[in-house]
């Protein structure tokens, strides 16, 4: 190593040390990044992008705009006070006639979301339209179906003129647009989501609470017992963690059903009569019991790892200073376990709120959580916009909770096993 006149330290090849170090640093950075890159790209492409794509879908209204571009162009000029002009009827007529069958099917499904009846109207009209060779279209269309003269149908189109819509989000919280594009409540019989959101929230809170009530004492026991006993008992916590979710759900069905083990024991013990066995499954009770057992390890593991670090000397000191054991526990021990309580609580809550399998299998019709409706719209009704909007709201709730989790414990401190 040589020293230059201006006091700069140089490496053997004459480059200033600082520059050389910086270069090495950059090379290391690139090397580290190259290692991470394959997985990062993989997750971005196969996971993050699809999720964002879904979020985009929840506000997307482009499809119908590609089917009826000209009609919507004219629609924007319509004053909505009286039936539209002959020009609009003619344009719509042409666009229905020329559109591809599948596209018009999709579009009419979308129209049906804003006013039911549109789908059947379009379907019926498309068949009849072939007979119409020339104008005036307005009268001939009304002759085919009187609904063409109903201004409400035309007004309902107004929601779709923009390529983006908030309609699905409104639907996801039991709101909708009326024909004048004002936000109103859904009709009574179609209000299902708010109650489902509340039920999901309620079940998650209760499960979290039960997990805390059951998990706190055993975490304490595990943290204070000598290692050889606690290792053995730890298996009782870890085995359910490793056992298939479906296996545990099946066992709860076996235990809780009307002719199941739990009821049979009660009958055998004479606590209840054979004819009034309790209905413990296919309702909310079943969901709560099964989910509590399934999620309990996620409460115990964070609690345990926090309690393990609490020195027993504090409690001893408190007792030594004359505190009652309960008082000492409440004042000294419990505050130190708050990080564990919040970590475990958040983890359980977050997992519970997105649960699908267990509520679906043991919840019956009254225990359906929001996951059910996401699946239902994905696979059965094919209302993918609403499906995405429900998913997006759920995702937003999760992200807020995880942000809180990150603030409290740090996301990289998640421990497994």
């Amino acid at each position: 190593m040589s020293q230059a006149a201006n006091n700069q330290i140089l490496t053997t090849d004459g480059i200033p040390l600082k520059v050389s170090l910086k270069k090495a640093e950059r090379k290391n950075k690139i090397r580290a990044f190259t290692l991470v890159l394959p997985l990062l790209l993989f997750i971005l492409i196969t996971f993050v992008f699809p999720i964002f794509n879904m979020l985009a879908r929840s506000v997307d209204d482009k499809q119908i705009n590609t089917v009826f571009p000209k009609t919507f162009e004219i629609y924007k000029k319509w004053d909505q006070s009286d039936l539209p002009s002959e020009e609009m009827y003619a344009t719509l007529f042409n666009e229905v006639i020329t559109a591809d069958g599948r596209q018009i099917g999709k579009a009419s499904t979308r129209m049906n979301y804003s006013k039911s009846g549109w789908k059947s109207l379009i379907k019926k009209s498309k068949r009849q339209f072939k007979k119409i060779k020339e104008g005036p279209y307005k009268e001939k269309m009304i002759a085919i179906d009187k609904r063409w003269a109903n201004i409400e149908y035309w007004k309902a189109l107004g929601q779709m003129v923009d390529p983006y819509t908030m309609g699905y989000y409104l639907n996801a919280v039991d709101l909708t647009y009326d024909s004048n594009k004002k936000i109103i409540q859904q009709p009574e019989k179609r209000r299902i989501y708010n109650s489902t959101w509340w039920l999901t929230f309620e079940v998650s809170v209760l499960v979290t609470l039960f997990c805390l009530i059951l998990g706190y004492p055993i975490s304490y026991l595990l943290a204070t017992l000598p290692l050889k006993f606690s290792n053995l008992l730890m298996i009782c916590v870890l085995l359910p963690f490793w056992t298939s979710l479906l296996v545990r759900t099946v066992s709860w069905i076996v235990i809780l059903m009307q002719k199941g083990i739990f009821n049979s024991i009660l009958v055998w013990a004479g606590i209840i009569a054979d004819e009034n066995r309790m209905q413990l499954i296919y309702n909310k009770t079943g969901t709560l019991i099964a989910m509590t057992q399934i999620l309990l390890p996620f409460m115990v593991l964070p609690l345990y790892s926090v309690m393990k670090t609490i020195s027993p000397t504090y409690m001893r000191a408190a007792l030594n200073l004359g505190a009652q054991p309960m008082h000492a526990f409440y004042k000294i021990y419990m505050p130190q376990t708050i990080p564990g309580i919040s970590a475990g609580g958040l983890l359980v809550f977050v997992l519970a709120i997105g649960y699908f399998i267990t509520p679906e299998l043991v919840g019956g019709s009254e225990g359906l959580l929001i996951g059910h409706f996401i699946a239902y719209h994905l696979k059965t009704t094919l209302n993918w916009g609403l499906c995405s909007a429900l998913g997006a709201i759920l995702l937003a709730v999760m992200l807020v909770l995880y942000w809180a989790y990150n603030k409290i414990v740090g996301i990289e401190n998640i421990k497994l096993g």
Partner: protein
Amino acid sequence: MALPTYTTTGQRIGYYGFLFYCGLVFFFLIAPIFIIIPLSFNQSPFFGFTPEMLRLEPEAFSLRWYRQMLGICREDDIITTVCTNKWMLGTVNSFIIGLSATFLATTLGTMAALGLSRPNMPFKGLIMAVLISPMIVPLIITAAGIFFFYAKFGLVGTYTGLILAHTALGTPFVVITVTATLTGFDTNLTRASASLGANQLKTFFKVIMPLILPGVISGALFAFITSFDEVVVVLFLGSVDQITIPRQMWAGIRQEISPVILCMATCLVALSITLLTTVELLRRRSERLRGIKLRN
């Protein structure tokens, strides 16, 4: 934890009450898993203990449902029940998907963990958050998102699609476990290896890999069990004949409830006990390895 001699009677009662309560909670955790094992040997097609079973009469127990699970349908003496080899098909599919996804997840995850553990990794927090996200997002949302995306590329109903989706779900576990093993990894070892003339690749396989192997294997096991136990994504992305074990159990619970489910459940419990034991042993080995390092 023996009680000190000066405890009062009240405290004693409280302590034993506490132990009793803990016992109940442990029972609540573990009993549902073991209760299905004897039931799977039931002779009758019920989901409960028959009086004969409780009297431990040998005729009340049989391997009948296990035979059905294996696809052996010839039964001479008893009423015939619907018999398919769907369970075996499911097992094969589960292993194909699980093992491929595990291989991909472990390779990608280990590499990423190595990169993330380097001291000069840029945007570490952000990248970690992205990599862990598949574990955080509820499965139902993941399934919906991937379904829309795959629909565009015709990947719905293909093995490739399922394997890729399960790989994404499994990688966070590999990243977390391997990163955890790498904390406290002595970087001087790689420097020593480099100064002795080994190239990067050789250093990795001869020095780094043996030390982080326990973490890699536990990560792989986590990834495997994630894929093996996963049903939501399979339900939405899989075609009708892409049956996996959890999917067949799902169908079994919803439609044709039969004790064969309990047989499969028993097998899965056995599998989970094996995996848990392996992971525990690996964890201890890893701790021991690191313990030795600290003593030096």
